[in-house]
């Protein structure tokens, strides 16, 4: 180690408290813009990747952003629902595949995504264990959802009640876990995937209960009419779908009117996509069709303008910190005046003394730079999803 470096190192080590404060403050101020840049870039990449993989979305009129965030990242839906007939209409057009999404319910904070098995193929979701959902009531967990719920294949997951005053009959449904997905780093990791009909059962649109027409079940009958039997409140509704009671589950009403929150529309070709956008872009269509990439680009532009504002603020903070650091160094040199005079008297050249001081500054700034680089690397490793930007 050179003499200059040795002297600088010993000074910094001796004044470790001051050094730590300086390194931390300079390091953090260097990290702020760099980390923000990384997070913004990763966030934009993740947002765009998911959007690019989703050609079109269909949903109720309203905010295109809300529809996109709900359908792509399973954010709680805020728009009105769309009738299932819209799904059938897209499919019947022969122009695209239509994959419905029902997103109204949760299981202990994990979004329950009611869809069709085609969704798993569309997103290329692979199973780490078990199989896909096949029967009413079965669910497949995303990797992170499985971890959060502490559930694996063979366990049961209970849907959370939608609200304390939900007396319409949407009892919590106990769903067997039949599969767990391999991690994807997307919102699918956080999802509890079920068949669309299962979501409707949770919504109270279908249910199963004791057969009141069976011999010995007369106590459950409230009224017998000509062609129907009205049960009273003593009839037990099933909260778990089993092979034994599966046949007792039935829907009330026309499935065409049942709700979905969004429809992933996958055109068969480019032309079909253009035709569909034209068809649903007409005024009074009753639904909206959005291109997720365009919505996400707008969102990213907004995010980046916020990022730029934060960068401007951090630049101001950086200048203030730099000024403070310079002040600390200058005051420190003043306090060390006698020490520096001694060095000169002993025989040190002015350049030698300056070299020692400059090396001290260099060591502090280098350590701050390393700290900033380490934090930036850590942030980039953790990824934007870990920051909750894209969490389900």
């Amino acid at each position: 180690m050179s003499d200059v470096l040795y002297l600088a190192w010993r000074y910094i080590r001796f004044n470790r408290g001051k050094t730590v404060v300086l390194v931390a403050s300079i390091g953090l101020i260097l990290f702020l813009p760099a980390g923000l840049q990384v997070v913004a870039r990763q966030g934009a990449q993740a947002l765009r990747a998911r959007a690019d993989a989703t050609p079109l979305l269909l949903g109720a009129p309203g905010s295109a952003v809300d529809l996109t965030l709900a359908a792509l990242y399973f954010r709680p839906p805020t728009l009105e629902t769309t009738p299932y007939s819209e799904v059938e209409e897209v499919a019947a057009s022969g122009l695209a595949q239509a994959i419905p999404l029902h997103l109204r319910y949760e299981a202990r904070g994990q979004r329950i995504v009611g869809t069709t098995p085609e969704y798993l193929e569309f997103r290329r979701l692979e199973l780490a264990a078990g199989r896909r959902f096949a029967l009413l009531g079965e669910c497949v967990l995303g990797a992170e959802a499985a971890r959060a719920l502490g559930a694996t294949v063979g366990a049961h997951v209970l849907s959370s009640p939608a609200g304390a005053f939900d007396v319409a009959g949407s009892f919590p449904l106990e769903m067997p876990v039949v599969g767990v997905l391999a991690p994807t780093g997307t919102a699918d990791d956080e999802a509890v995937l079920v068949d669309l009909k299962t979501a409707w059962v949770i919504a109270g649109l279908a249910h199963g209960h004791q057969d009141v027409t069976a011999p010995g079940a007369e106590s459950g009958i409230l009224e017998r009419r000509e062609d129907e039997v009205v049960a009273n409140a003593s009839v037990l509704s099933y909260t778990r779908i089993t092979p034994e009671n599966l046949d007792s589950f039935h829907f009330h009403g026309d499935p065409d009117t049942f709700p979905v929150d969004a429809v992933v529309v996958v055109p068969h070709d480019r032309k079909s996509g253009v035709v569909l956008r034209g068809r649903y872009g007409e005024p009074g269509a009753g639904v909206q069709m959005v291109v997720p990439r365009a919505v996400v680009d707008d969102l990213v532009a907004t995010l980046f303008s916020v990022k730029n504002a934060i960068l401007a603020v951090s630049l101001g903070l950086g200048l203030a910190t730099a000024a403070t650091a310079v002040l600390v160094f200058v005051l420190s040199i003043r306090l060390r005046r006698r020490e520096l005079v001694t060095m000169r008297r002993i025989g040190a050249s002015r350049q030698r003394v300056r070299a020692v001081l400059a090396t001290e500054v260099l060591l502090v700034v280098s350590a701050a730079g390393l700290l900033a680089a380490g934090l930036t690397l850590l942030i980039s490793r953790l990824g934007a999803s870990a920051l909750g930007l894209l969490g389900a």
Partner: protein
Amino acid sequence: MESGVIDVQGLDFGYPGGEFRLRLDEFRVAAGESVAVTGASGCGKTTLVHLLAGILEPRRGRVAVAGLDMTSLADEDRRDLRALRIGLVFQELELLDYLDVLDNVLLPYRLTPVLELDADARSRALELLARVGLEDKVRRPPGRLSQGERQRVAVCRALVTRPAVVLGDEPTGNLDPRNRDQVIDALLGYGRENDAPVVIVTHDHELLERFDRVLEVGA
């Protein structure tokens, strides 16, 4: 002029814009000779030591130390001469708190490229520390030493480069008699053993008889 001798002729010094003047027609210190410099406060004792060390430049006159005329040398050459040939001890001692005792003694080697820090220098530093009774405190920081011990470290730092001339500015000013005697013993002993002139500024009249000669500045 022989090495290890101080020779001052027609010295005239004044600080820029100040009224203070130091004049010394002739002042010569032979090899191995010790001189105590005394005088009233503000008479220029410290200034004289700084002139002899080449820290200050006279307006007129000649200051020759260890065979070289300081007044004819460039600033860098005076600095190198000071590092190589002059041992300095100040009352306002400045040990570096962030270096331990041994590193403080070896500081001239780390600050001046003309001196090479080698095994000889280290063993000499340890030997000097042992001579002043600090052999078991070589790795201590100066903050954990007494005032007397700190001054003894400063003496070792001044002598570690084997200077041809030893200059001191009230090096015993703040010391108790025992430590004072240890410091003076070390400085005068070095001068005798190495045939080096020793010039020490002091207010302590008890010390004067230990020097070969006394110079009263301003008299």
